[in-house]
């Protein structure tokens, strides 16, 4: 297989397989969660579960003051790499063209130099996150092999994407193929690892807000 065949495979069958596993996996995971169901609450309500649940979905993104003080590093680096991922994935011109190709939807891109800079910042933030995870007593205690694997498959598309854009280290088709392959790895592992929080966070925050709001406390 030469590099063009390789590129064609990762762009064609490889990509299709990855997207199918990604979509089917997410549906399976969400269904297996929701199918478990919940018993209705028979206690008399003091507040609105629905209003509080909806609010918590958004309000949990903003940490309360004393929490920010205690977990500053995790919160700041967390914000940086999440926003960085959002920008690099969804606001880079070639990516938007791909989304348009697949879904027909399109939106304005950010200037390429900005996305380029954000990529570097995001990579640095993710390395800081890993360094913190390895040096902090609590995080080291908490960390398992899945945490490392997820970190790796998250940073690989950023690094391969950066190299592909700047054409460093190999020929353009090989670099692009490696970038797409790294994204496929991310897609395939997504539903079966903690990456799934990107979807289940809505459920978790909703439940938390609803449980608390029913008792009259905005969580």
């Amino acid at each position, binding site marked *: 297989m030469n590099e063009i065949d390789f590129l064609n495979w990762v762009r064609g069958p490889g990509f299709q397989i990855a997207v199918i596993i990604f979509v089917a996996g997410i549906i399976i995971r969400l269904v297996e969660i929701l199918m478990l169901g919940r018993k209705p609450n*028979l206690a008399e309500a003091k507040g609105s579960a629905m209003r509080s649940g909806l609010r918590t979905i958004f309000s949990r993104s903003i940490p309360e003051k*004393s929490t920010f003080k205690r977990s500053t590093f995790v919160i700041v680096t967390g914000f940086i790499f999440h926003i960085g991922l959002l920008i690099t994935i969804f606001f880079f011109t070639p990516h938007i063209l791909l989304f348009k190709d697949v879904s027909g939807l399109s939106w304005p891109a950010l200037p390429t130099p900005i996305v380029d800079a954000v990529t570097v910042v995001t990579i640095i933030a993710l390395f800081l996150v890993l360094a913190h995870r390895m040096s902090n007593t*609590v995080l080291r205690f908490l960390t398992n092999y899945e945490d490392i694997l997820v970190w790796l498959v998250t940073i690989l598309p950023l690094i391969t994407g950066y190299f592909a854009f700047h054409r460093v280290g190999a020929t353009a088709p090989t670099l692009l193929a490696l970038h797409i392959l790294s994204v496929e790895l991310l897609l395939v592992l997504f539903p079966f690892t*903690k990456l799934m929080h990107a979807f289940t966070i809505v459920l978790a925050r909703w439940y938390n807000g609803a449980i*608390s709001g029913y008792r009259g406390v905005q*969580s």
Partner: protein
Amino acid sequence: MSASLEKGINVLKEQVDSTVAAFFSSCVHCGMCTDACLFYTETGDPSKTPILKAEPLRRIWKSEYTLSGRIAKLFGLGKKVDEKLLTDWETLVYDSCTLCGRCSMVCPVGNDITLLIRKTREGMAAAGHAPEGLIAATKRSVTIGSPMGVKLPALQAQIRHVEKDTGLTIPVDVEGADYMLLLSSMEIMHFPEFIGAVAKIFNKAGVTWTLSSEAFEATNSGIQIGVSDIAAELVQRTVDAAEKLKVKTVISPECGHAYMAIRWDGPNLVGKSFNFKVRHILEVLDELRQQGRLKTSSMDTQKLTYHDPCQISRRGGVINEPRNLIGMFAENFVEMSDRGKMNWCCGAGGGVSSNERADEIRLKVFQRKKDQLDEIKPDAIISACSNCRLHLEEGLEEYGMDIPLLSLTEILAEHLED
């Protein structure tokens, strides 16, 4: 596998619902819950990480209720729940967690971690891994009717004292009264002044109320140890008494978990909605205040603060009521830095105070409350939970601090217009 372990695993399976699955699916191991837990902040021990305390439940969810976990199980892979895990986890789940709920407020993905630990306790207890102190308290609750072994004659003796001191009648078994008051054993034995305070306030406000000789105990060891069957049996006693006396509202006294048990867990434990209301004493008093039926005549000039009992404030929803009431008599009220739904636990809730094995750690983690108090240096602390109150008194003594503890109901009664 031993019969008790199998029972524990089956009970853990019963605990899994969509909330449990959503919570475990969302954890990213960020460690923020650890920073929110006083058992970590005051010990520096990473094994106290809140989400890890629910590990037995997580393993059951993973291996039984996820596709990847079930496949792993087929190949004999995946982490199992065994006797050793439960033995290792017993002190984490019971001694190093007061179910205070602060981690649930902080988790960035929104996990109600406290709910997960509470559910883990159900499996631990079923597998025979609950602390002796809590088992004994639970047995006394079932057989005698009180975790401290307080029987009706003891209550009657205290009632006679209170009636003599106040000159008021304490109504017992009065059919058709508006309110039926529950009491915690701690109030009966250590703080009988509470009964007198309620009598004085209700007398002034013209409220009809009663105690029940058949169900006066408010506490519920079943929800602390994590045995829903027993918790339901204890709730049912209150339900039967309230229905027999045809009261409109049952009042939960100054006790945190008692309020959780009867107000929020109660109907779900017995499987039906109550045909009476349940209110915390502070909610009742605040309602009387709103109706203009409570008038204070004197003001307190001391620097006062309020310690939020976790199960009443953060987990219970009674946060504004105490502040409204304190406003009626306090000239110099100061809040602690973290308060209301973000308060720090005293360190003795969730059955920790009934568990002698946890005596050392609960006094150690009291350092968190001490630091909070050092910031504002109050003359006195008001609270609304006898368990908090006893532990705060003990903690303050241990740390050489001389700050009196006041019951909100009692201090309010003192400031009432004559």
